[in-house]
């Protein structure tokens, strides 16, 4: 039997069935049966998702979907059960699969009561997330998109840390739901115009400018899409929900709270269905991304609550990705997608570690800590590794993404891109500052108030198991990025290169006056791989066959 045709459904079904089974097992105080069950389910899911990179056809045409599963669901309106992955979503699916067991392990002891509820919701969240990455039918996608809110809201409301949890849950839901409602309107409008919810069809129509001739409506529609996704990311001024939700949500939930869902959706749907509009609005989003980077970092600098600090650091990190993908350069988009993976992994590690601290000391107030390094050498090691990955130290994963993003931003052809690149790059400084300061305040110096009182213990075996894979991935992804990039690039290059007849409104050609002298040198340049002593001949040969370097790419707009 060939798994390729049903693997995506299996991936979706595994956690769903798991959730159902867990919901039926009665709960008894103190037993771990639900945790064990959830672990098994998530591991099985992970195993299934690993099928994808294994059998992915890297040579397939750009923008095509693989492991396609497409069957009718509702006849009228025409809704199909259509799943598929491409270079963009493939690794995200694996990522979702990978984070789940870690989430379960992170909750192993942290969640002691109502484990049944917790793990059931957790698995449902998993289903929704995987569904979002897999769905290729707008309706189906929207289903999973909305569904993803529910378990999260309940997790926050039920397992929140403080009395504020209900408020935080509702805030989270409202922030996400109201724009989603507008998104639904936009989707319905699209359906009314085109009669289909099928994403590939819509993309094809969009490429032919065949969706609608009403430009205003198209614009509003694209804004509706973008707004819904932007809140979920969150993009800078829309992050009001983030810090509350991060503060309240349990570790396993907070790991998947921000970032990837919204960003994936922007890449898949905003870029896919509204390529022109996305390019037109890109300068604004580049600006917001750059501002968000600095803003999040600066606010993280002044926080005394670890979770809040992590929340703003998350904001800063996802803003990097926003900056990257809206540059519409291959490097920017590739780096952005890659950084989605990195951000998720690093964020997961960070939140797991914070959770460990909380398990031991029962506080997130940074002022209660201090001097823990002597008590927990392993923990400080993991913390430092995570921090370094987060601040983008070369050879760890964060650097590859950040570098590609920022250099993509520099290559972008939108006005003021240099300025925003510079603003974004300041994130490198501030990022290091707040992360290292955090480390210092928690681990170094004299023992703090709390860290002196409470005994605490270093990482136990389970905690090692949940952290080491992450740490190893940081290193591997920092060193062997092509393994991932191969698939991502097949998406990124396509997304960046989409031939669009964009009027040069705010997308000046390279010879615009503010950076006149900067762009001249490349005008008469050829691909720059003169095979010298520094370049491997085979690579030079490969480089010749490649399309023009990114600089020239900008010129076609």
């Amino acid at each position: 039997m060939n798994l390729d045709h049903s693997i995506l459904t299996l991936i979706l079904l595994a956690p769903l069935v798991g959730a159902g089974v867990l919901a039926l097992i009665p709960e008894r105080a103190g037993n771990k049966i639900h945790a064990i069950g959830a672990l098994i389910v998530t591991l099985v899911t992970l195993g299934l998702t690993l099928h994808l990179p294994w059998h992915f056809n890297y040579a397939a045409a750009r923008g095509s979907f693989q492991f396609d599963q497409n069957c009718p669901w509702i006849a009228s309106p025409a809704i199909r059960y259509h799943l598929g992955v491409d270079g963009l979503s493939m690794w995200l699916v694996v990522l979702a699969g990978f984070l789940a067991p870690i989430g379960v392990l992170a909750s192993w002891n942290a969640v002691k009561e109502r484990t049944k509820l917790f793990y059931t919701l957790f698995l449902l969240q998993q289903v929704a997330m995987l569904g979002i990455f897999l769905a290729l039918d707008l309706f189906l996608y929207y289903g999973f998109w909305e569904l993803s809110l529910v378990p999260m809201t309940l997790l926050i409301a039920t397992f929140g840390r403080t009395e504020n949890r209900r408020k935080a849950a509702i805030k989270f839901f409202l922030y996400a739901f109201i724009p989603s409602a507008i998104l639904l309107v936009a989707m319905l409008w699209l359906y009314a115009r085109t009669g289909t919810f099928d994403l590939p069809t819509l993309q094809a129509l969009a490429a032919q400018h065949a969706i609608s001739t009403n430009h205003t409506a198209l614009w509003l529609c694209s804004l509706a899409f973008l707004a819904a996704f932007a809140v979920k990311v969150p993009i800078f001024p829309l992050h009001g929900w983030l810090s509350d939700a991060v503060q309240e949500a349990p570790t396993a939930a907070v790991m998947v709270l921000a970032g990837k869902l919204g960003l994936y959706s922007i890449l898949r749907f905003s870029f896919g269905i509204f390529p022109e509009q996305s390019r037109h609005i890109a300068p604004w989003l580049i600006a917001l991304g750059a501002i968000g980077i600095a803003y999040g970092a600066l606010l993280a600098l002044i926080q005394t609550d670890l979770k809040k600090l992590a929340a703003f650091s998350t904001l800063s990190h996802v803003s990097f990705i926003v900056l990257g993908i809206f540059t519409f350069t291959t490097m920017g988009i590739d780096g952005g997608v890659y950084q989605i993976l990195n951000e998720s992994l690093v964020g997961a590690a960070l939140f797991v570690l914070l959770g460990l601290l909380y398990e031991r000391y029962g506080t997130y107030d940074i002022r209660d800590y201090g001097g823990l390094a002597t008590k927990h050498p392993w923990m400080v090691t993991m913390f430092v590794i995570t921090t370094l990955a987060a601040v983008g130290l070369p050879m760890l994963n964060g650097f590859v993404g950040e570098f590609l993003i920022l250099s993509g931003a520099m290559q972008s052809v939108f006005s003021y891109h240099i300025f925003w690149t510079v603003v974004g790059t300041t994130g490198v400084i501030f990022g290091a500052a707040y992360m290292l300061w955090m480390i210092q305040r928690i681990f170094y110096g004299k023992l703090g108030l709390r860290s002196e009182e409470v005994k605490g213990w270093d990482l136990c075996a389970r905690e090692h198991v949940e952290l080491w894979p992450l740490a190893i991935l940081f290193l591997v992804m920092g060193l062997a990025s092509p393994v991932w990039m191969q698939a991502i690039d097949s998406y990124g290059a396509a997304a960046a290169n989409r031939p669009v007849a964009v009027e040069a409104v705010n997308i000046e050609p390279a010879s615009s006056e503010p950076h006149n002298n900067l762009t001249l040198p490349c005008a008469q340049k050829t691909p720059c791989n003169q095979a010298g002593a520094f370049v491997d001949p085979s690579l030079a040969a490969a480089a010749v066959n490649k399309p023009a370097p990114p600089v020239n790419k900008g010129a076609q707009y």
Partner: protein
Amino acid sequence: MPTNLLTLLPEIILTVTGVLVMLAEPMIAPGKSRKPLGWLAILGTLASGLAAFYQLQLVNASGPISGFYATIQVDAFSVFFHLLISSIVLVTLLASLDYFEGPVSHAGEYFALACFGATGMMFMTCSVELLMVFIGLEISSISTYILAGFRKGQATASESSLKYFLLGSFATAFFLYGIALCFGATGSTSIGAIAASLGTTATPALALLAIAMVVIGLGFKVSAAPFHVWTPDVYQGAPAPVVGMMSTAPKAAAFAVLLRFLFNAAPMYRNHWIVLIEILAVLSMTIGNLGALMQRDVKRLLAYSSIAHAGYLLVAFTSIQQDAVAAACFYTAAYAAMNVGAFLVITQLSGYDEQARTIDDFTGMALKRPGLSALLGFFLLSLIGIPFTGGFFGKFYAFSGAIHNGHVVLAIIGLANSGVACFYYLRLLAALYARPVREDATLLSPRKLAIPAGIAIAASAVATLALGIMPNHVLNLVQRATPETLPAFSVAPAVSTLPPAAPTEMTR
């Protein structure tokens, strides 16, 4: 069997059941359980549902059947509502078998009234003669007036009943005035005849007045703003299972009448009434949601939410005709499933004596009764409009039609409203799942869930879910219902751009 009787089969069965219940009631000694009567009523309702299904086969075979000098028309439309009403009543009866157990009980009368009320509603949906509609409306209204006051020993019960009755009669007068004016404009009270002569009437102003008055009267019945004011008070005072029924079944019937009247009798004046419907829809959605926003009492909250849902349903009316009927019908069904379900769960959770009334009383309920809380959560999510539930698909379909017909602003208002709405649903939901702030907040001893009530709740949940993930069967029925209700009169080209549904086994 004569055709005439066939056309009325479900109604006849229900009436006979009601009479039988009434007759049997005195034979059971006072103080004895009235459950057998309940089972009798349940059987009758079930039979009437099956009869409606049987009618569907007939309709499938030979098209719409009319009877009794064309006062009755059995078609997919009426069958759909027959099935819906009988299902609602069936579920409600199942759930309230135990509710009315007690030393001083009027359970017998309750069962009989439910049957009679259902009969009235069915008449409303299948008659094409306004006189018949009026009488059906009165039967259903009077039954519900009485049922609203069925909570014994509660000062609020009679108040609820009185409010409903007085304001209901007040609105009925408007409805009746509308019929009179309609008669004045066309000289007939039969839908077909009205439709035929309304286009050529010498007094279009009268026709407009008639439409306005009918909309007022029915607007009251469906609790659309600004005729919604009675809803929260009445729902609060009435017994929870009854509220579940009366917030859905009579509404469904009233919507059916409204659909028939607007789309079948008055399509000529579409441009006039559509503005009206839009205004009512916007008002209903907004007022309903805002009213519920700060509400602490759960029943009142759901009452406001039902106002809002009436608004969403009215949005469906703004689509082109086929879509409108199909979407409205579907929404009615979805709303019925989830709302009845929600009320049934609330009945169970708050106890038959309604100890838990406010949101705070429900705090931490999931700890004590995880299953029921999960189901209530599910119904609430459906009411919010979370995908893979009937509520979502209904909303989706309604707004889809509206947008299709160019009412984008309306759709945006509606969906923004559903954003506001999720705040209060979520507050309840979050309360269910939050740890209780005070331990003494919920001291209710969990009462064992009776099996019939359990079946009823499960059925609602299954229906809500099924309408969300496999709506094909119902969609088929409602999409087919349309053309038969709308013979030949149409202003806008009745070409739906939604591709017709492929027939499935059930409806074939």
